[in-house]
């Protein structure tokens, strides 16, 4: 069995989390304040309309039953009543409309911040986290903020405004009844804390159990093939059933306690209504000889009774939205962790100091570059290197020797600790260049979509010839709509080699001066290898500056200069 985490530990971490996340959420709320305000105003109007509605109902009944005014004499009141109902419905509808709009701005802001952080982090450091995790943060965690801004925050304000207004009205009608209401909800904040604690506990327990349960279920689904190989699917089914049932029993134990807190709210609300009804009844009979009850009429008595449930309604709604807060706190904490994760100063991409361009625009130079991943352990120390424009450079050497790091430095994906790098007279990464990573990069869409990703204004003809340059012509010809057919059709994706060639085609399309390639032929099938070699040769002939890391003999021959990167040194081989 998995050991349940200690309860105390959970409670503390929740409090800490709230303390850390709340200011961040408040900062985000600032942008959508008008929408939150509009939601609260609409909600308040609906609340006021409810009070007016109840007052008109009580007045109609009072005049009809006590004063025995015929229906025809009550037309104005009825008209007012219907008007109020329409206003209440409109305000209610607008409240959800505003609430729905409310968090759009917040989510856009949060996503923009994450995008900025990604860019500041740069491709090298970003690759340390799985793209699935990053996507989950960008999509799901940001979505989790919605309920907090759209529902919880406005309701928090409404659960103060509406009950207080009702309390004031009841106080004016009969102060003793108002005191009953107040006594039943001794202090609204205390009440809310009670609700909150119950809801949070419930929520946490619920989610923990559910996620643990689904973890085990998914574990079995993932290993279904193995279970089948051993002929054990039947016993696994039994196990799922047993475990599920076991967790149900544990969960119910906590739920029984957790539901008590909401039962307390329910109990206070019910008892308050009962006490008020009986008090008013006895007051109307004249049995109560103290306090304001002698002035009670059917109108005031009925109105107080009708308002009593409305007094508690906003609090009950708030307790329903409490899980939104918990979700936002959880998601917010993880987002803050990501956004606060230090941006490695070495892993910045471009836009470095663009000081006065040196005249030397015809070469790439590294002067006294030092880079160490750890103190005392320099990868490069005082490295100096000079490469002329148009040269084809192969970097070779043992794995872990620093080939990729050198490429990252030239790309501006990393910055050196000391020293200076100039690429064709500019800071590395401050202008577009070609990059080919080890994994081919393609998106769902057509061939044209994929190529226009980096060169948006490419013509159809240019795209077609770029694809033919990397040997994808036959594949293209087999597709109905040419470059406008989807890259993966009928679930048939591209092989690793074809994907890399597609990436390579992008480099043909754009007129880059510098092209950096990380192991361009590693792991390719022999077909693709031939096409990649041919394509690189064409690029070299076209006068591009090519720098690539490789172990491949054919590529080494293609280069007009081979550099051996090993042990922190770079020298001509």
């Amino acid at each position, binding site marked *: 069995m998995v050991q349940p985490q200690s309860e105390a530990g959970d409670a503390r971490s929740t409090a800490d989390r709230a303390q850390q996340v709340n200011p961040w959420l408040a900062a985000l709320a600032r942008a959508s304040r008008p929408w939150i305000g509009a939601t609260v105003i609409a909600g308040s109007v609906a609340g006021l309309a409810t009070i007016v509605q109840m007052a008109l109902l009580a007045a109609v009944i009072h005049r009809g039953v006590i004063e025995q005014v015929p229906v025809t004499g*009550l037309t104005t009141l009825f008209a007012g009543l219907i008007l109020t109902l329409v206003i209440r419905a409109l305000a209610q509808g607008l409240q959800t409309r505003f609430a729905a709009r409310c968090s759009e701005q917040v989510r856009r802001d949060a996503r923009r911040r994450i995008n900025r952080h990604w860019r500041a982090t740069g491709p090298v450091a970003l690759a340390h986290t799985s793209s699935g995790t990053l996507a989950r943060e960008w999509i799901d965690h940001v979505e989790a903020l919605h309920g907090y801004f759209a529902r919880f925050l406005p309701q928090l304000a409404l659960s103060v405004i509406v009950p207080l207004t009702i309390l004031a009205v009841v106080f004016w009608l009969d102060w003793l009844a108002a005191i009953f209401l107040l006594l039943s909800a001794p202090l609204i904040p205390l009440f809310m804390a009670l609700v909150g604690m119950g809801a949070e506990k419930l929520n946490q327990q619920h989610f923990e159990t559910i996620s643990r349960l689904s973890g085990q279920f998914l574990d079995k689904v993932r290993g279904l093939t193995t279970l089948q190989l051993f002929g054990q699917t039947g016993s696994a089914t039994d196990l799922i059933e047993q475990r599920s049932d076991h967790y149900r029993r544990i969960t119910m134990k906590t739920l029984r306690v957790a539901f008590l807190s909401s039962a307390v709210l329910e*109990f206070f609300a*019910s008892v308050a209504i009962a006490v008020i009804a009986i008090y008013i009844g006895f007051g109307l009979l004249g049995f109560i000889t103290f306090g304001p009850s002698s002035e009670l009429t059917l109108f005031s008595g009925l109105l107080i009774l009708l308002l009593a449930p409305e007094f508690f309604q906003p609090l009950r709604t708030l307790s329903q939205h409490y899980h939104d807060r918990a979700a936002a706190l959880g998601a917010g904490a993880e987002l803050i962790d990501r956004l606060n994760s230090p941006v490695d100063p070495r892993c910045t991409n471009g836009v470095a100091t663009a000081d006065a361009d040196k005249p030397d625009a015809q070469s790439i130079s590294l002067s006294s570059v030092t880079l160490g991943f750890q103190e005392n352990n320099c990868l490069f120390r005082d490295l100096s290197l000079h490469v002329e424009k148009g040269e084809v450079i192969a970097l070779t050497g043992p794995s872990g020797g620093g080939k990729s790091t050198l490429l990252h430095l030239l790309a501006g994906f990393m910055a050196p600790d000391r020293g200076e790098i100039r690429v064709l007279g500019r800071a590395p990464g401050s202008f577009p260049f070609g990059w080919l990573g080890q994994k081919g990069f393609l998106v769902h869409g057509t061939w044209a979509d994929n190529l226009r990703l*980096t060169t948006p204004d490419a013509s159809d003809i240019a795209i077609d010839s770029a694809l033919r340059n990397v040997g994808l012509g036959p594949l293209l010809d087999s597709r109905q709509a040419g470059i406008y057919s989807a890259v993966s059709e009928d679930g048939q994706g591209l092989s690793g080699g074809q994907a890399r060639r597609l990436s390579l085609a992008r480099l043909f399309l754009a007129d880059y001066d510098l092209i950096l390639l990380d192991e361009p032929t590693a792991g390719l099938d022999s077909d693709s290898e031939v096409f990649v070699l041919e394509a690189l040769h064409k690029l070299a002939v076209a006068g591009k500056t090519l720098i690539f890391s490789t172990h491949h003999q054919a590529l080494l021959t293609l280069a007009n200069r081979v550099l051996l990167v090993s042990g922190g040194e770079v020298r001509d081989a």
Partner: protein
Amino acid sequence: MRELRPWLRLIFRRPGRLLTGGVLLFATLLCGIALLAVSGWFITETALTGILLAAGTAAAINLYVPGGAIRFFAVARTVFRYLERVYNHDTVLRLLTDIRVALFTRLASAHRRLRNELTGAQWLSRLTSDVDALDTLYLRLIAPAAMAALSTALVVALTAVLSDYTTAAGVGLILLGALAIATLAVYIRTRALAFHQSDRQESLRTAVIEHIDGFAELTAAGRTGKHAAWLMRQAHRVTTAQARIDTRVGWHLAGAQLLINLAAVFALWAGLGLLQSNAVSGPVLVLLPIALLGLGEVFAMLPEAFGKLGATKASAVRLNRDCVPVVDTDPPDTVDCPEGIAVMARDLAVRHPGHVVVFTHFDLRVSAGERIGIIGHSGSGKSSLADTLAGLLPPAHGALSIRPLAYLTQTTVLFEDTLRANLLLGEPDASDSQLWRVLELVELGDRFASEPRQLDTWLGSGGSRLSGGEARRVALARVLLKEAPVLILDEPFTGLDTGTRERISKRLDGFLAGRTVISLAHGPDALPGTDRVMYLTA
């Protein structure tokens, strides 16, 4: 609603529980309505009596029955609410178990090829959320809708009894409208949006993952900003659709509440007319509109639940699609193994569905007790061949016959469970001493003997508490435990150092005496002892 039918059938397999939960829910709502209605009746009664008393007229009023009723409803409402919540959440958790078990059973019998396409972490998490959408179907949608219909009928009947039929008909009509607005109309107006919302979210996720995977290339081309802006627009589309659903749900809720309030106003207006003709008394006149107002709470949950019905339907469609039962494809020509032959393959073609043929014209004949090694570099189709021999992958062409086998797959699959439970998968009836023996064989005996819980050591999620080499050896031990005449071992020694590999190899020679072993590896040094070795060339 055809998509939901199998799941509804599953839910309604517990009619007793559903009914009890429904009754508790109904009692809660009824007590809430009755508390207010009786209170209103009581106040009006006392007001009228009070006026008579003040005027000096003798008047009698029974205070005990209504007073007692008010106190009873106040307490009963709380008690029923509590019981209802506990009971119905218990039901939901039971339904969750039912659904998981049913889903697992169906997945297990589903076409393996189909399942293979769906193994990503994304699919698994979607599976969870789809199941969650279905397990709350009863508590969120079925029960509240039934309660709303029932309490509407009850209030209309009450009106007919206490007032007259015309009023009852009017109230009934208005409430019917409210019910339609809160349920069917919401569903119709949101179903298309809600149905596709999950797809939209998935394609957005794909786009974000592509953005991150291509971050280096996009950065180099100076296009991260532009591409991120495109992503923002895609995200905005998802957000807008959700906002539109929320807004529509909100308007329908407001509309339903408006109609309920109008019904109350109508009942009051009609009642005042009847009061004049002395057809109803004042207190009864008050009771009806207040009871109607109480219906608002019953209807409040409906629009949101029906706004999600489109998404729930989409979940059901996906789950139905993911567990299509096995369709009989042309079974490969099966030939019985002749005496003394363990494996026979003739003119075999191996191919992953939707991909090119890995290789063709593969012939293999292995005698019983023979040990062969098959060597091929990664990507040579070695694992596809192993899958085909083990019957996981139907051959694209050719004939294959093989005796019962145990198969160690290339990927190590361990379950989040104890060491014992993981090993027993191989041989459910194995004794502890048998388990220790195979553990000794793969040099894990001492490792687990020193653990405090020994065979009951928790291996963690996917064997995360073990090193890669240890996990591999546990998987190997599990296969060795299975008493099958044929063993297929795909890269049995991944993650093991040369020394361990050689020692285990030597021990296996003795342990496997008399059994047929086909081992596959990327190089000869990764194979256990063999009688002959074949090379696969792509």
